[in-house]
């Protein structure tokens, strides 16, 4: 195989997909698409080296608009498939992608366990605090009081993905914003380069169904943890305190990073040659059969 250093430089053009984009004009997803292409190019990851596993929702369509390997999974189920893909072929760069409803609602149990398991994959969550594909119902991250057709008296307590991730000791926890390309590229690159499970929760304005968490809203409230003097992303307690900030000031950036053993390296079978490359030989079980005699 050609080594990365010998390849011509990659650009966002190398990830252009022929598929017609179905997102609404102005959708925050476009910013994420741009940033992810840029991050992949800068990391010199070619389309065939990357596997995207996506869920269902507007975010689930994301990898169709990108040149890559793609397993577009069921609603909420991207993580289990992504984890398994990485275990059987660690040479692949595996990125799971979905929305807040997909990942924190339908797939909540997988989210918890993927963080605990710490398989070396990246999880990008397009967090627009609303259901887009099903037309504007409350999502797990909708603000309390957010009125929709299914929550006429206002949404109830939202999930706090950052706090949850810190509680699960996820080994890389970041938040970014779709309209801040530079910041998002940086976070995505760091996440992909991190060894272990990396979460990037990405604020992404839904221009059609969320009239609260708008571009305006984020411009006003977001600030970068990078700008916070003395913030130490290896301090779990400090990270937890930051994760609770929601209101006038909302932090984005790397909340927490920890060095933790990676699941697949603890799995004896997955240590040697990738499982996908191993030869299948029925005859090697002869002695195992003899144990039953």
């Amino acid at each position, binding site marked *: 195989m050609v080594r990365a250093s010998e390849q011509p430089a990659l650009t966002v053009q190398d990830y252009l997909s022929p*598929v017609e984009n179905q997102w609404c004009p102005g959708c925050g997803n476009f910013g994420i698409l741009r940033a992810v292409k840029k991050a992949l190019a800068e990391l010199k990851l*070619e*389309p*065939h*080296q990357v*596997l995207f*596993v996506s869920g*269902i929702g507007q975010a689930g*369509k994301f990898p*169709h608009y990108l*040149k*890559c*390997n*793609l*397993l*577009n*999974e*069921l609603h909420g*189920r991207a993580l*289990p*498939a*992504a*984890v*398994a*893909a990485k*275990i*059987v*072929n660690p*040479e*692949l760069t595996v990125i799971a992608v979905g929305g807040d409803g997909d990942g924190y609602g339908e797939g909540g*149990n*997988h989210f*918890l*366990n993927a963080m605990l398991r710490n398989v070396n994959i990246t999880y990008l969550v397009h967090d627009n605090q609303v259901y887009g594909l099903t037309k504007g119902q409350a999502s797990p991250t909708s603000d309390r009081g957010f009125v929709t057709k299914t929550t006429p008296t206002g949404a109830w307590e939202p999930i706090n993905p950052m706090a949850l991730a810190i509680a699960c000791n996820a080994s890389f926890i970041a938040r970014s914003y779709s309209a801040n390309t530079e910041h998002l590229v940086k976070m995505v690159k760091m996440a992909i380069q991190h060894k272990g499970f990396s979460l990037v929760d990405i604020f992404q304005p839904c221009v059609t169904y969320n009239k609260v968490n708008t571009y305006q809203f984020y411009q006003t409230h977001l600030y970068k943890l990078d700008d916070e003097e003395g913030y130490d992303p290896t301090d779990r307690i400090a990270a937890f305190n930051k994760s609770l900030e929601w209101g006038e000031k909302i932090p984005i950036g790397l909340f927490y990073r920890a060095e933790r053993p990676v699941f697949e390296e603890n*799995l*004896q*079978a*997955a240590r*040697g040659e990738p*499982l*996908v490359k*191993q030869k*299948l*030989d*029925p*005859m*090697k*079980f*002869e002695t*195992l*059969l*003899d144990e*039953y*005699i």
Partner: protein
Amino acid sequence: MPLDVNFLVGGEAGQGIQTIGFVLGKTMARGGLHVFTDQDYESRIRGGHNFFRVRVKDEEVKAHNEKLDILIALNKETVELHKNDMKENGIVILDGQALKMDAGTPGFVDVPLEKLAVEAAENKIMSNSVAVGAVLGLVGYDFEILADVLRWHFAKNTEKIQEDNVRAARAGYDYAAERIPKGFTKISRAASDGKRMFINGNEALSLGAMAAGCKFLAAYPMTPTTPILEFMADKGRDYNIAVLQPEDEIAAINMIVGAAYTGVRTMTATSGSGFALMVEGIGLAGITETPIVVVLGERAGPAVGLPTRTEQGELLFAIRTGTGEFPRAVMTPATAEDAFYLTAKAFNLAEKYQTPVIILTDTHLANSYNDVSKFDLKQIKIDRGALLTNAEAVKLTDYKRHQVTESGVSPRALPMQSRALVVTDSDEHDEYGHMTESAEIRTRQVIKRLKKYSGLKSEMGQPRFHEMPDAELTLIGWGSTYGAIKEASEMLKKEGAANNVLHFSEVWPFPVETVAPILQNSRKSIVIENNATGQFAHLIRGETGHKVSGTINKFDGRPISPSFILNELRKGVV
């Protein structure tokens, strides 16, 4: 007279019933005899009433029998519950002192299990080995075989523990040998070498999966298939198989889809309720044309039902499973041999047709040990179907994962095998794997997927058909009931009633062409199933239009035996 001796070890959970039963069965099989065991236990770790039955014959045996020659009672309740199962000269072995029972009762052989264990090995726990020894002493079996089996069974323990068990067994053996009731059945080792495997359905199935090259198993513990997960987690370390216990069955099915898409052979194992959670994922494998193998070990439902007991209540659930329409195959192994060979076959079918294959077993098959000829690994051929070699993959340009072909099967590349991108989607998709709303493409893809049925059909094994001239009756069944139906058929024949047996180990796609003429020529056809509604009878009706003459159903969570079938036939119910 042919040998046919039936033992039952009964007591509370946690008393070591399984060890006694297993060691007894293994010892008989090592001596070249034929053995079939079945187990009955409650959903609890301590207490209750559990038993392990061991049937020994000098010819092939594939079914259990209710009537007992020797009852090993580890508690009082066992005697009460099984006294009516005893044959006329049956013997009850018990420790009168420990159970505070009057051992003077006719038919009782009082063996001070605990006392002998303490005397021989200074350990009450060894009383289980005393019990096995006593059983073999009563029937005059070769003690050395038992000694070898005990050393083998406790091989992971210290040599002292092994020898203590042998000494304890010897004490029981010698004690019982002096108290053999007059004229009691003797069991001698057979002339054959005993080089047969003694194995249960779960183990045979696991070995089949491993031999077929399963490289990734994700499963959530659920009776009766938990031992598959445990077995492969253990053996997988030596044979490079990644085994995971995920958070739930939904994760399990999606994990195996992810691993299979990436390029390895994968499997999951569960029971009915876990399978219900997997249904959406099985549809995902259908539309993304991902080869997976799913083991559905049936137990008595619905919902939690009788969690440790057997049933055949999910035949139609398996055959019809999934949202929407897509091809699948369903195997219903009848024996441990079937469990091995058909599981290996399931992996080939899954990859050749790039679609899910379901292996439908049940608690009875999963837990029953049987002696079988050593599995022949030379018969296991790995056929990965349209999976491209690396050399083929690097030549790909404009790769279409879901290319429409004559057979419905598309060339299958793997991610990172070459520069070709492998794209697939749970949404309806075009040939490239990208989602589509097009009516034309949708229609083409549905037809493409369903076309795979014609290939699948040609691969399905035919049912076992044991035909007798002038048969008045055809007994029909599927899955784990084979042994019982076959034996019932032979008993009927001895009584002068010629009959056929038609039994299915591969039910879907249904072999209509073979079955329809057999049924048309049957005078009377009876479908025997471990369920209440006669699902297979419905399937036959739906696939062939043939309405069977009657059904025999059992749905109390207990397996069907030959005598149950005969009794039902005699009742004239059918």
